[in-house]
């Protein structure tokens, strides 16, 4: 069973049993505090890093862009990441094959 299938099953099981999906599988979790801080869990790495835009890979086919001003990466581990700055926009995009 592929990882994608595992995640799909976890998502369905979570929905049926009323359990948060992030508690079952490795699904990215984003915590936004006000307009100044974004905390990411279970990310897959950094794709782009500038002071106006930080792009993070969330899974095999999804990317998340944090756009704003004076953005900076405060800290990063293999699974967690903290971004600070003035956040204007957060958007998801499908990764081009």
């Amino acid at each position: 069973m592929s990882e994608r299938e595992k995640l799909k099953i976890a998502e369905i099981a979570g929905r049926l049993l009323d359990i948060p999906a992030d508690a079952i599988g490795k699904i990215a979790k984003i915590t936004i505090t006000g307009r100044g801080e974004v905390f990411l869990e279970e990310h897959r790495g950094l794709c782009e890093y500038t002071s106006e835009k930080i792009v993070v890979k969330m899974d095999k086919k999804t990317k998340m862009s944090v756009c704003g001003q004076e953005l900076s990466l405060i800290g990063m581990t293999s699974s967690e990441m903290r971004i600070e700055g003035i956040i204007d926009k957060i958007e998801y995009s499908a990764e081009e094959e």
Partner: protein
Amino acid sequence: MRRLINMFRGSVKVMLSGMKNERILNLLSKYGIIFWDIVQMNGELELYVHRKSLKRLIKLCVENSINYEILQYRGAPHYVCKVKKRFILASGLAAVFVVVWTLSLYIWDFEVIGNNSVSDREILTVLEELGIRKGTFILNVSSERIANKVLLEIPQLSWFAVNTSGSKAYVLVRERTEKPDVFDESEPSVVYAYKSGEITKLSVLNGVPMVAVGDVVEAGQILVSGVSDSLSSGKRSEHAAADVIAKTCYDLSAQIPLKCSIKNYTGNKEEKTSIIVCGKRINLFTNSRISYEYYDKMTLNEQLAILGESFLPVSVVRDEYVEYEIGYTEIPQEQASEILRQQLTAKLQEKLTDGEILHTSFEFSVQDGIMIAVMHAECSEQIAAERFMTPTELSETYENETET
């Protein structure tokens, strides 16, 4: 908190380049190297890693052809490593710290606050008798314990406390306010002249006037009697009161030598420095002889203190000897007479408690190089004072009553 932890753990600021910044960061996170405070500069990355992660970072850089440069070491471990190499310096610093800390636990300076009539020395002597002196352990100074004893020893004080700040003791005192003399206005009394003079104004508030305006009275003479006639009992005693203004005369004299010695400073000076440690003086000079015949000595005592609060038993004493030669100068007679004029006027003002100067005249003479001035002054002042009637005066009054 994070900064504090990083300070204890130690951190290293590194600059990484040679690869896309995003890729470098991904590699670091993949290898489990924690990093923070990332700054991008001209395509290069500056970031902090823990001191312990530095070896792994270097290995990663070598394996992946990343250029690295260590910019700065920060935190306690870095300083400990530095100090380890200088053991003597470190132990010296530690010893100085221990000595200073130990000495700061003792009192080395006193400041007495709130006293006017009782001298600092008197208060400090009593404290010394109670065991509070320079070199006393701070915890042995209990304000409550000694306050009662000090108040008993110095009755002029009404309140006493000792506060310690660093190695300085602040002795706070409040002095007792003297009870004012209460003049019982129901007691029989007379008004007398406490100065001689010619009466110019007489206002009797109570009693029988014994003098009139224009009379010349002597000091001590009764001006208003406290014994008055009574229709029912013949004589009765009462409390006399009056305002009596009189013209008074003063003859005052003063003198000043017309030739006096002055100091002509030559500009030569010597400085000798000593250190006083726990009351023992250590001279930092070998020759204690002063080469000048006439000199002024100025002593500057600086007590060492930490942050201006904790005084240490170490003070630096600088004695400065300034040479002068004795010269003589003549004071011009006009200047001398002006000085004497001012002196005598000031003297007269002191003598006048409640009055004004009406007229003054001066006589100047010179004898053996000394100018003598005599001032004749006419003043207008209050000369009345009250006193209780003496037992004799009272008995005379009662005898007259009985006879009547």
